[in-house]
């Protein structure tokens, strides 16, 4: 139980996917303009991350690792995740139209998002068990949500601020993102501090 807590804590704050590992920057910069769309996107990402982990972990352990084909993981994972997301989208459209219309726009966007792929691959790099992998995926999604919500608030302020012509638009957003990322460095070493070595 403690291990899962450590994983959650570290992946949300210390090793935040967006702000420390720089994965999933594209949706982070693209969709964070408004709070509601960034929350929708984050929930979709969390959903897909957990789903992708639940499918790729057995696939890796039972198929790839057994035949010593670990080097194929990236290509196989992309294939599986893309097909999975498509399937989920079709199923949602049929059986849960309400959820589909709220997640629908974002689902295809994250088919092969690097944060999703990164979450599945990092599970094996860290040697997590199945339960730990799921916790890692969930935490990664929550960390993404945190970063998105924080950044959409910052962006709303930037939009209204009187910035010099040169920095208008993307440059000011990139600078703000880098400062937010620096701020998250303050969490480094916190896991040892809170949970002990």
């Amino acid at each position, binding site marked *: 139980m403690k291990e899962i807590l450590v994983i959650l804590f570290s992946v949300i704050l210390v090793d935040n996917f967006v702000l420390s590992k720089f994965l999933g920057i594209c949706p982070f910069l693209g969709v964070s303009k408004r709070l509601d769309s960034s929350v929708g996107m984050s929930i979709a990402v969390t959903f897909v991350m957990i789903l992708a982990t639940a499918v790729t972990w057995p696939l890796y352990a039972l198929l790839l690792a057994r035949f010593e084909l670990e080097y194929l993981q990236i290509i*196989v994972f992309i294939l599986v995740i893309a097909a999975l997301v498509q399937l989920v989208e*079709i199923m949602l459209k*049929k059986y849960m139209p309400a959820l589909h*219309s709220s997640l629908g726009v974002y689902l295809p966007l994250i088919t092969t998002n690097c944060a999703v792929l990164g979450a599945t691959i990092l599970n094996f790099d860290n040697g997590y068990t199945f339960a730990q992998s799921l916790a890692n995926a969930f935490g990664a999604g929550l960390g993404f949500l945190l970063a998105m919500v924080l950044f959409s608030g910052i962006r*709303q302020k930037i939009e*209204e601020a*009187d910035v010099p012509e040169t920095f208008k638009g993307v440059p000011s957003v990139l600078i703000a993102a880098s400062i937010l990322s620096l701020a998250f460095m303050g969490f480094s070493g916190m896991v040892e501090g809170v949970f002990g070595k």
Partner: protein
Amino acid sequence: MTIALPIIIVSLIGLVAGVGLTLAAKYMAVSVDERAARINSVLPGANCGACGFAGCSDYASAIVDSGAKPNLCPVGGADVAAKISTVLGVEVDAAEQRYARVRCAGTFSKTRYVMRYRGMQSCAANKTFYRGRGACPNACLGYGDCTYACNYGAIYMYHGVAVVDKDKCVACGLCVERCPNKLIELARGGSDIFVRCSNTEKGKVTRSMCSVGCIACGRCVKACKFGAVEIENNLAAIDQEKCVGCGLCVKECPMNIIRKYSDPSFPHHRAKSASPAGGQAAQG
């Protein structure tokens, strides 16, 4: 052998995924009603959401699937409602006339300003950073964000307050969303009498901020013979369902903020030349 196995495994996974997706797409396909597409082509395509649905195509499918009324599109009006009913093959009433109106009357000379704002000339910026330049937290900010939001040129600034030209307004609701102070409302049928104030402070406080604010004196409530006016949150509110438009409350209001939209002295009928948004901001 070393190369055959990976090839077999990857193509097998690909094949399973492909066949699975094909089957899923076939057996779980959602049939799209072709009438929805035809209704969609009739709609104006402004995607403004004034009908209460998320854009034109959503409204079109709502008409077909859940029986939404065909006369909800205020942009298209009676014309579009008639076309939709031809597609559906039913008779419908014409769309009701709707328009936006601004619930603030605090022009430069009437309301008190607390700062000389030199920042970005937009209501949203002024609101985000300084809560507005006026003493009243519910006053029109006066930089005309709504005039930029309007695609139909129906809003203009009149001495620092936004005013809607009823004839041009199509009630799309874009300005309603844009206003940071939520001052603009859509009139839904009923009479054209409304309260030109949104301030919810107590009477004395309101008086200190603005000479045309609702002081919640309650004279309009007593004047109304139909029980249509109530004071909520120190602010008069008119129930459009009950209001018959007799104008008794208009005469009674000591601050002169309960007004009839069709009243000839209403700004919308006077000088239509738009004063520049923002203007001589805090000089008043």
